[in-house]
């Protein structure tokens, strides 16, 4: 166990040299640093996925275009979808889970810090593995939900699908490990007095998300394992000739797939639920209801998967059942929307960049949700499925929802994470250009879908009336690109000359703002005692019903700080992740490598487990 001195050493002396810094990041188990690692990697992959999108948009800018051929285009939309969902939005949310959950529940770290590092390194190795396929000219080309039996060896003999199938399994492992970690953290590490109902809503939505992750990913893992056995070991799961049914894949995938989309949106909803109260200077309207509807969404999320399969011919009964369950989900979501508006109502709203993005979220997500409800009616969906109307739907929820929400979080917590304020004017330019570009890009897609443009086509005939709006959409997508340049510029300018933030730049409400920015390694010198969801606000202003502000807690003594134990750094997570990658990639190269990698993994797991065999417990007794 590192004492105060030890990790002062860890963060000072070591990091003076360049390699010291590198090493300290490679071996860190600090949830804040891991959060930053997640965030930066995710943003880079967001740019990658975005550039893939821009190339697609260029190809679709005019009919019979020949910028890229069909093979390349199929790779582009497959990798774009996979990248954005698994390598951009999920890890970006994970960045906030990592950095914020412990701060918001008043903990010093997550439950299993080394496991947390392991999750990140596995994520990174999986992401790099997946993208390395570009180098071999074998980028996955089966679509982001890779429907069998197109993905079986007979129809996809090259390694393209192998990269996708193995990459997703690695990423799934990472997400699930992180999921367990945060579940335990939230259940077990809350500061004294923080009952579940006093938990900040962002933590609540993350909590639901973790349940969705650990319960949904097993389904896709199985689906992928079956595919893997079909491709490598000659099983017949997706083999029509042997009685196998390609629809099995679709069911298993969407049993995962629909919860997945809520995995993508709930964290953003949590962020919005933190930002609105802060900038309206009012508690979240009907917070318990917002929380319960979050739980509802998560629960119903497991009972609607076949709404992605209305056209496969499940029969009227199944169609009807899944249609109703799908529509039900609109209720809790709608409740959230109106409660957010209720939060603004009667507030005194300060229009700072984070708020703009949250408002953008409400405005745009509503749009996407409503088009979702149109899909929920099977007859209507028969016209819309696999058309650009669906593409419009899910970009309004994924970009208009998740991305706007996550950017809101970035602007909101940036000062806490870096200690410096992002420039607000640039932030607003970023927002407005992104909002305009976003609507220019995706609103026309509703229209294109309704006049019959199918998705996943690399080209189209000039006489179908699609040309005009496809061009506008392409222009819009580049405007989005420009908006992101504003953000990138803002980041670098802030690094050089950003206003210093201080503990509580937004006059906010929750615990993380009660500590310095950036927070010390141990987060809280003294674990706080919590009395309310907006505990910090009450400390400052009282309950607003005449209740006086609570007396400031006594200043922390040096002795207290010296007594804090923080976990040591560890390099086993990094090595373990590498060994795992060796094993998995072996499946495409040679069984020998698989065995070696496997044994290596086992051995490292042992070392990993034994590193802390009988930790502080021992010291105590």
């Amino acid at each position, binding site marked *: 166990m590192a004492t105060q001195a030890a990790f002062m050493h860890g963060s000072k002396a070591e990091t003076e040299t360049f390699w010291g810094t590198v090493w300290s990041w490679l071996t860190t188990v600090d949830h804040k640093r891991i959060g930053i690692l997640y965030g930066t990697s995710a943003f880079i992959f967001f740019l990658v996925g975005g550039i893939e999108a821009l190339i697609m948009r260029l190809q679709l800018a005019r009919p019979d275009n020949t910028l890229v051929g069909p093979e390349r285009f199929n790779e582009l939309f497959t990798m774009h979808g996979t990248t954005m969902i698994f390598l951009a939005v999920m890890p970006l949310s994970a960045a906030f889970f990592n950095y914020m959950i412990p701060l918001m529940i008043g903990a010093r770290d997550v439950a299993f810090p080394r496991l947390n590092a392991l999750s990140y390194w596995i994520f990174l190795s999986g992401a790099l593995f997946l993208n390395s396929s570009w180098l071999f000219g074998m980028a996955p080309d089966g679509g982001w939900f890779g429907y069998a039996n197109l993905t079986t060896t007979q129809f996809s003999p090259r390694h393209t699908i192998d990269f996708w199938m193995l990459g997703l399994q690695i990423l799934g492992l990472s997400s699930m490990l992180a999921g367990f970690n945060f579940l335990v953290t939230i259940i077990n590490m809350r500061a004294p007095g923080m*009952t*579940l109902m006093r938990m900040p809503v962002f933590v609540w939505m993350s909590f639901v998300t973790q349940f969705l992750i650990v319960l949904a990913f097993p389904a896709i893992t199985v689906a992928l394992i079956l595919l893997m056995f079909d491709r490598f070991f000659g099983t017949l799961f997706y083999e029509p000739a042997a009685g196998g*049914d390609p629809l*099995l894949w679709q069911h298993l995938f969407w*049993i995962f797939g629909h919860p997945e989309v809520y995995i993508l949106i709930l964290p953003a909803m949590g962020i919005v639920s933190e930002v609105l109260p802060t900038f309206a200077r009012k508690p979240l309207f009907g917070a318990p209801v917002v929380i319960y509807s979050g739980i509802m969404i998560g629960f119903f999320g*497991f009972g609607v998967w076949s709404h992605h399969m209305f056209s496969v011919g*499940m029969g009227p*009964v199944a169609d009807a059942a899944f249609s109703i369950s799908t529509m039900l989900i609109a209720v809790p979501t709608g409740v959230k929307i109106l409660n957010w508006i209720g939060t603004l109502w009667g507030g005194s709203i300060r229009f700072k960049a984070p708020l703009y993005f949250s408002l953008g979220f409400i405005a745009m997500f509503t749009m996407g949700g409503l088009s979702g409800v149109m899909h929920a009616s099977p007859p209507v969906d028969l016209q819309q499925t696999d058309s650009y109307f669906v593409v419009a739907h899910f970009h309004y929820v994924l970009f208009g929802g998740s991305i706007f929400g996550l950017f809101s979080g970035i602007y909101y917590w940036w000062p806490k994470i870096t200690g410096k304020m992002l420039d607000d004017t640039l932030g607003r330019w970023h927002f407005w250009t992104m909002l305009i570009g976003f609507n220019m890009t995706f609103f026309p897609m509703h229209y294109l879908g309704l006049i019959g443009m199918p998705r996943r086509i690399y080209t189209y005939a000039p006489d179908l009336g699609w040309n005009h709006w496809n061009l506008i959409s392409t222009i819009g997508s580049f405007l989005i690109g420009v908006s992101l340049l504003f953000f990138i510029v803002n980041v670098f300018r802030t690094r050089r000359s950003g206003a210093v933030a201080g503990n509580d730049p937004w006059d906010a409400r929750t615990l993380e703002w009660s500590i310095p920015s950036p927070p010390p390694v141990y987060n809280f010198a003294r674990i706080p005692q919590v009395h309310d969801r907006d505990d910090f606000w009450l400390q400052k202003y009282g309950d607003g019903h005449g209740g006086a502000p609570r007396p400031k807690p006594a200043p922390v003594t040096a002795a207290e700080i010296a007594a804090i134990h923080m976990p040591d750094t560890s390099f086993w997570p990094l090595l373990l992740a590498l060994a795992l990658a060796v094993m998995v990639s072996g499946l495409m190269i040679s069984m020998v490598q698989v065995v070696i990698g496997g044994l290596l993994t086992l051995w490292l797991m042992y070392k990993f487990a034994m590193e802390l065999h009988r930790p502080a417990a021992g010291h105590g007794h």
Partner: protein
Amino acid sequence: MADHHAVASAPHGGGGGHATVRTYINVAIALAIITAVEVATLYIPGIPSTVLVLSLLAMSAIKFFLVVGFFMHLKYDHPVMRALFVGPLIIAIAIILAVMALFSAFVLLPRVVL
């Protein structure tokens, strides 16, 4: 989910105190008997298949919950643990049933002809 902050009895959270070796032995015996009965029913001729299936399911369910309840202490353990396990279990079973329904609805997959 309700809120639980009871400080666990055993310092290391191992709420094992309640079940004694006696109980374990009894449970084991019960499990052995049920398994025997299960297998036996197979060899009894002329049980209508629905009865057979239902009784088999019932028996295995009992075994399942005996192990979970006593050997895994869930009967005595903190409600959080129960929620963490039983919740997913229910979802899993529901999904299995739904998938079965969806698949037996497939009229066109040929039945075995041998």
